[in-house]
């Protein structure tokens, strides 16, 4: 991980402010954020509700733009981009995982995973194949044709993770990903994140209000009143263990080529 620090950071925020003027009184959600996140990091952003962590997440995810200050993602000044370019960045470089899973209810797991590829203009056959690979990676190949309502919460969140990863994003953004899950399933999902981070050097930014969850990350940023109160490396992250080990042979057999493809993909996309 240390060699990653030598190259240009993936995410750079310089004096970022965000003010919401929609109400009667302007809300200062972010008050001068300076932050760098490097490739391969697993960062947890922690804070109580109202601390500005979700606003920060939305800005990092290119869903929103700073009121003031500059945000560079992968070397690009996001503040200068139009809606279509933001959409393109979200599509190709960012993968979202939400608290409420946010799967399309009427589409199967496989179709949900395919969704980003549709907007990336990938042809149907390749779409299907890549979606399959991702479902296999998260251990849900046998649930490909199930609707979200036919899946457990943990399974739904794994489909969401597969969807987030299908376009090989630079960063995986997870907003309270375990918020709707019981503690055992939470462990499973966190184990999935740790595996993605360790095996594939997937950059992950996780937003949570629970210290127990944040403790699984390699770096913990504490937000308070729209500012970063604390930013420290977590030298001994808590290791999450899946409650019951998955059928590893399947995951491994298919996981290997994907691991390679991730390694190859990163330098080529980091222009």
């Amino acid at each position, binding site marked *: 991980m240390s060699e990653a620090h030598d190259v240009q950071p993936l995410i750079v925020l310089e004096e970022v402010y965000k003010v919401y003027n929609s109400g009667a009184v302007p809300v200062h959600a972010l008050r001068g954020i300076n932050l760098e996140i490097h490739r391969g990091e697993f960062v947890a952003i922690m804070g109580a509700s109202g601390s500005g962590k979700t606003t920060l997440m939305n800005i990092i995810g290119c869903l929103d733009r700073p009121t003031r200050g500059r945000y560079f993602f992968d070397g690009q000044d996001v503040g200068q981009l139009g809606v279509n370019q933001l959409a393109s960045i979200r599509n190709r470089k960012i993968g979202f995982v939400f608290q409420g899973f946010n799967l399309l209810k009427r589409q199967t797991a496989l179709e949900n995973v395919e969704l980003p590829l*549709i907007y990336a203009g990938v042809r149907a056959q390749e779409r299907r194949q890549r979606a399959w690979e991702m479902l296999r990676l998260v251990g849900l190949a046998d649930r490909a044709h199930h609707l979200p309502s036919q899946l457990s919460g943990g399974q739904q969140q794994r489909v969401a993770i597969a969807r987030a990863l299908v376009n090989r994003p630079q960063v995986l953004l997870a907003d309270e990903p375990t918020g709707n899950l019981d503690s055992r399933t939470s462990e499973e999902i966190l184990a999935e994140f740790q595996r993605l981070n360790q095996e594939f050097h997937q950059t992950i930014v996780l937003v949570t209000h629970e210290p127990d969850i944040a403790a699984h990350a390699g770096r913990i940023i504490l937000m308070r009143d729209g500012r970063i109160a604390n930013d420290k490396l977590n030298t001994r992250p808590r290791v999450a263990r899946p409650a019951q080990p998955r059928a590893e042979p399947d995951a491994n057999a298919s996981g290997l080529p994907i691991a390679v493809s991730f390694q190859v993909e990163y330098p080529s996309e980091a222009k």
Partner: protein
Amino acid sequence: MSPFSALRVALDALLVNKGRSLLTSLGIVIGIAAVIAMVAAGTGTREKLDERLNSVGKTLILIRAMTRSSVGLLTTAQPFTPRDVQALREDTRLGAMLVGISESQFELVTASTMTTQCHTTATGGTPEIKEIRAWTLASGRFYTEADVKKAANVCVLGETVRKKLFPTTNPLGQSIRVQGVALEVIGVLAPKGRAPTGADQDDQIFLPITTLQEKIAHKQNVGVIVAAARDPSYLKPAEERIRQILRQTRRIRPGMEDNFEVTSVQEMAQLAVYVTTALNVLTVVIASISLVVGGIGIMNIMLVSVTERTREIGIRMAVGARPKDIRNQFLIEAVVLALLGGLVGVLVGIGLAVLLGLLLNWPVYISPIAVTLAFGVSVAVGIFFGYYPAAKASRLDPIEALRYE
């Protein structure tokens, strides 16, 4: 996003709410069906009318001894005299424009053979009537000038009369009795069918006017003179000339109303065209209202759909859908909805047209242009009324949309 993917997404969304989709497109269905059915019936009617007009003779001029009262009612006037007919026949200018002139006297008669009898019309005339009315013979011959001169006891049967009197045997050379007078059947006419008025033109017996006047009717009562122009362009001048001559022979002083009527079949046809045109205008009005109502229905249901699927829109935006992609998705959905309405409308319209055709014995003509136009209009309605909801969807803020419950 490829157009095909977009189409699939739209169809999926519509199929989830089958009943709602169907009800929404009902306005379009009604509008399109009305147009298709009316155009089909209208075109069929016009063709049928045209066919009947042709059977009567497009250049036919009808001169009737009738007066039009101040309120437009026709009443019988003094019949035409041989002198009237003579004057018309001898005019050289008319002779150049007309195929022929024939006085006609009609009598309702009973015709019988040894075994059967029927009621029909006996039409007395001169041999030119065959050319003027464009009759063709199925068998035998028509009566001649000589037959007229000597008031020969001969007659020519229309097909309907032949069927009644001689259903199985050959009538040529046979004798029939008309009001008790024995006439020899010398010819049978090829059938023509109904006139624009609906009267069966084949339900007639043709005989020399002299025979009819002297032996059957025992009176001269020429109510009608028929003539035919050599070319449709002669119709107007010929009618005018006929009017001039008859005013002279019938001694009508300047300023007095005619006591006869000169009309051409074309003029009658004009009336029918007015009626069908008025019907068509009415149909277009009804269809337009129906389409606008249908379009508003589509707009309404699309607005509901956008609200219902706010979260879906947020998800799509989060994973990289551009505003344009979202707009197109809903626009395509609206167009597909309208197009489905159009398709059902075309089918219902064709069904209605066929049904009408069967009930009223109309020929039905399904115009490919009308069908193509119907689909075109459906697409236009879908785009026009779908644009606002689609644009609204595309302008949603992804964060707000994702948070929507």
